[in-house]
């Protein structure tokens, strides 16, 4: 079953003479029970897409259904079925985490007793007992993200939206946070998250959707994306004098994409590198080109991103900040 289906979803902001096409015709589908990762640099349109899907702002054009309900006609039904954790969280700073959770539950129609029970359970599950009776204004970044996540699932929604849930956290807290997200998925909750950490989407998400300048430029599992776009990477170390000849030799082979010659290395993409490598190496020996080193790599998402957008995500972040 599809938890989210969008067709040509678009959002254009107008302020005075300026128009920003924040989201340009996004069509995607999110399956039940998966972790769906929306990935892209700052300004790509991730948050805007999420705001539309969570009924916070109406799309300029296009259609969407969320948990089986139409975004335009049944926003109220959608709100019953989704949890949303924005980039900023949104707790009352001067109330305790526990109070925030109970209030959240009550606004979703839970009785006081039920809300208190859920809050206690989540405090246990997310290991928040140490601090959840303190004011939120005293929390560390990691503690905040935990309470924010708990708020998002207080009413046991089948679909949860998380906008940059781990931005700003140190690596240990991030890994710790992933564990909670995975557990939710294992309980059957569908998770739609955004991130600009490629390693995060790689290890956490079942489906990855790369967004750039308001458009989806690639979608698939981490495996699929890496295979379909880049192939595997073979890097061969050679004597500098042999580079040119080796480059010609490799370029003539079938299935080889993008040969890049370095000073003493030759790098190229090839499909199914583990099968190709045993066939390629004898050609070098036969051609009298001594091989110094050989490396076969699976491509990382960084390379996929570079291929699809023409720049690295780090460089995009650098420009933004």
């Amino acid at each position: 079953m599809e938890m989210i289906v969008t067709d040509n979803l678009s959002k254009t902001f107008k302020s005075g003479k300026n128009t920003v096409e924040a989201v340009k015709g996004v069509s995607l589908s999110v399956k039940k029970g998966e972790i769906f990762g929306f990935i892209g640099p700052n300004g790509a349109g991730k948050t805007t897409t999420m705001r539309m899907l969570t009924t916070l702002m109406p799309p300029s054009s296009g259609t969407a259904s969320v948990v089986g309900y139409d975004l335009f006609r049944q926003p109220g039904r959608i709100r019953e079925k989704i949890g949303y954790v924005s980039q900023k969280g949104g707790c009352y700073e001067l109330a305790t985490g526990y109070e925030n959770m109970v209030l959240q539950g009550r606004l979703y129609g839970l009785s006081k007793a039920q809300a208190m029970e859920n809050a206690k359970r989540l405090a246990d599950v997310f290991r928040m007992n140490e601090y959840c009776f303190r004011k939120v204004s005293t929390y560390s970044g990691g503690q905040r993200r935990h309470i924010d996540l708990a708020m998002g699932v207080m009413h046991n929604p089948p679909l949860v939206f998380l906008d940059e849930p781990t931005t700003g956290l140190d690596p240990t807290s991030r890994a710790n946070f992933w564990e909670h997200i995975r557990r939710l998925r294992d309980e059957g909750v569908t998770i739609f998250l955004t991130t600009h950490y490629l390693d995060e989407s790689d290890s956490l998400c079942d489906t990855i959707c790369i967004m750039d300048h308001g458009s989806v430029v690639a979608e698939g599992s981490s495996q699929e994306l890496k295979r379909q776009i880049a192939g595997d990477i073979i890097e061969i170390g050679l004597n500098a004098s042999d580079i040119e000849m080796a480059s010609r030799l490799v370029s003539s082979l079938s299935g080889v994409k993008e040969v890049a010659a370095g000073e003493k290395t030759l790098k190229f993409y090839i499909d199914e590198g583990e099968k190709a490598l045993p066939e390629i190496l004898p050609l070098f020996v036969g051609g009298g080109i001594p091989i110094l080193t050989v490396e076969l790599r699976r491509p990382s998402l960084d390379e996929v991103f570079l291929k699809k957008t023409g720049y690295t995500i780090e460089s995009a972040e650098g420009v933004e900040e």
Partner: protein
Amino acid sequence: MKTLKDTLVLYSHYQKLLLRNPAWMLAALFQPVCYLYLFAPLLKNATGVGAVSSINQFTPGLLVMVSLFGVMFVGYTVIDYLRNGVIERLRVTTASRFALLMGMVLRDVVTLIAQTLIVIMLALPLGLEITPAGAVLSILLMVLIGLTVSPASYALALTVKSEDALGPILNFFSQPLLLLSGVLLPLTLAPDWLLRLSSLNPFRYVVDASRELYSGNLRSPAVLKGFVILIVLSAASFLWSLRCMKKAAA
């Protein structure tokens, strides 16, 4: 039904947060105490308008001032909420926009009722005379001021979205609104042009109504006029804020 429940749940949450901050409550009391005990004595000889004692002239105006200023700046909290994502989170819950607003407005109104009662208590030893019916109507008038000013403050805050813009705008309106309403001194002392200018200010009629209540003229047309103006204004104010809440985004 859920809307009513959500309103009460939110109201009690906001009220609890407010009561946790005693400094704020002292500040809310300090202003009326100052005016009653430090400013009102000056009026004794200044005005002397017929049969009505000066404290009975002054208290009804003071009440309008306290309520205007007490509630005018409530929008600040909402800017904070907007920035911290609170409003966005609330808007994704199943609580209605009406409840989201009314929870806050109700807290402001309850605060006003408490302030009104305290001002009346403090003014009684100074010679204030008021019938029970007059006191009830006076409180009702304050409630209506709260229902007018508080949603408008939230609407403005949700529109401008920053303290830097909200502060100057509120100050720009509050001073003439106050001075042209005859809050401190009755406008009977005013020259003609000032009178005409003040007739454009709806709160002038509210102050008039308030004074009539404390002069014992509960059935005066001025009272009716004040109430009708406030009812219309509060409805407009609430619709405006509801619209803003529907669209609110940081």
